[in-house]
């Protein structure tokens, strides 16, 4: 359980800027490792968390802090009651928050500045009350990994394009791969928060949790293997595709196996969650609490994007018309050079179409991840 200030028994909160526990009442500060744990013997295997329940909205607040749960931060209702003390397995270590809440807001706002498409309403929501610092459980693993892939790619043969097939199989040993230890948090989002630098990690001390929320791993060994295999597969596939000298390379089929070495390390990594609703849909943008990396896709104002697209279209068509007029003046319509020039413009169009569609699909996929109800509820459950 969180300790109190030895000078005035006030509440101690971990400050990422100073990396110290600070007393809000008398201003004293302590290094977490210097604060005596009076129940050290009991705390070798487990640590205590307080679980509060909001009787208004039913949300659960999990914290090791003493006062931060005096009201439900989600619905703002003070009808929050202490439910139970839960014993959780002590993680092996954690990376303390380095980025303060103000820095996290600043990092998000840098993305907003001069941003022509993000709605002002969303910008206004980027305030401290909408940001939560949550320690996310991760398993840091070493593993052996084997994968076999059957790939296809398009190759030019004379004037035509043919599809060729490729086979790759390989093995690799990976070290210190962080695998998100929560089944609720989407692995595609959590992997984008990387890198986390393990050099900054500390032995687990619940004093670091003061002032933040935390979550414990709900995974079993089967889930961990599944997540580890998926994480390794994504990295492996990215490398394998690069070895194929063809266009539009696709993995047609693959099979993979992972073997996690003994003693995966149970860690907690710091993440800021910025949650808000726009047009009735939930959004969660994440900030790596160690490096400050912002992950997520912001909603955009449809009117502005449509206006932007129409203006762009008019400008593009004007440029094309100028080029075509120039060509017609120089060469008669349907002369060889004219036809070649036209073919080049059409090829450019086809290239832009393919790239544009693929890019928009990727953005849409990321937007869906950001709009994930599960992550929104994940934060809600932890913050109240």
């Amino acid at each position, binding site marked *: 359980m969180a300790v109190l200030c030895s000078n005035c028994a006030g509440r101690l909160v971990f400050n990422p800027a100073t990396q110290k526990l600070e007393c809000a009442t008398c201003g004293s500060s302590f290094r977490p490792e210097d604060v005596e744990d009076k129940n050290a013997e009991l705390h070798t295997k487990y640590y205590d968390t307080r679980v509060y329940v909001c009787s208004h909205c039913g949300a659960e607040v999990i914290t090791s802090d003493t006062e931060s749960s005096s009201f439900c931060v989600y619905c703002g209702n003070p009808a929050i009651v202490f439910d139970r003390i839960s014993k959780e397995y002590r993680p092996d270590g954690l990376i303390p928050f380095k980025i303060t809440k103000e820095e996290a807001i600043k990092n998000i706002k840098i993305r907003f500045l001069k941003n022509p498409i993000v709605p002002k309403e969303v910008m206004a929501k980027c305030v401290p009350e909408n940001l939560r610092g949550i320690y996310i459980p991760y398993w840091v693993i070493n593993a052996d990994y084997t994968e076999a892939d059957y790939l296809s790619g398009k190759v030019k043969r004379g004037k035509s394009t043919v599809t060729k097939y490729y086979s790759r199989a390989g093995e690799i040993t990976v070290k210190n791969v962080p695998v998100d230890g929560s089944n609720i948090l989407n692995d595609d989002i959590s992997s984008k928060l990387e890198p986390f630098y393990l050099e900054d990690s500390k032995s687990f001390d619940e004093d670091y949790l003061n002032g933040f929320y935390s979550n414990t791993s709900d995974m079993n060994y089967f889930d961990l293997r599944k997540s580890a295999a998926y994480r390794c597969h994504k990295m492996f596939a990215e490398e394998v595709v690069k070895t194929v000298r063809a266009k539009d390379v696709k993995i047609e089929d693959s099979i993979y196996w992972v073997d996690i070495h003994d003693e995966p390390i149970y860690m907690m990594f710091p993440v800021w969650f910025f949650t808000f609703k726009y047009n009735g849909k939930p959004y969660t943008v994440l900030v790596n609490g160690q490096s400050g*990396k912002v992950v997520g896709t912001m909603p955009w104002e449809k009117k502005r994007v449509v206006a932007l697209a129409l203006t762009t279209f008019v400008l593009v068509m004007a440029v094309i018309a100028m080029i075509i007029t120039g060509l017609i003046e120089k060469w008669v319509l349907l002369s060889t050079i004219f036809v070649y020039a036209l073919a080049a413009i059409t090829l450019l169009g086809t290239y832009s179409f393919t790239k544009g569609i693929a890019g928009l699909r990727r953005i849409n996929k990321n937007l869906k991840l950001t709009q994930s109800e599960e992550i929104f509820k994940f934060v809600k459950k932890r913050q109240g």
Partner: protein
Amino acid sequence: MDEQVFMMYSVFIGMLVFTGVSITLFIVYKILNKYSNFGDSSCRMDEYSLRGIHYLRDMDDVPSTERHFLFSNYGVNPYEGRQHSIPEQLLKNTKPDDDFDQI
């Protein structure tokens, strides 16, 4: 107007409009990606492995029988039978019907 010339002009204008729409699409994607899509990258293999991938099979332009060969050769778990000690935290969440040999 001669029907053939009309068709030619229609195709010509259609191609130009298609090019215009495509380039607009590409520019809109670039704008959305710059202003709306953040942190769309994850760590690559070399971040977690010094030696990189050791290739066991690396063949181009393979015949159609390759898929069958590849998956019959690599379809068996090469790590089967390896025993590991599993941390208590992971055992705590294990359900009775979990089979650790399956991914």
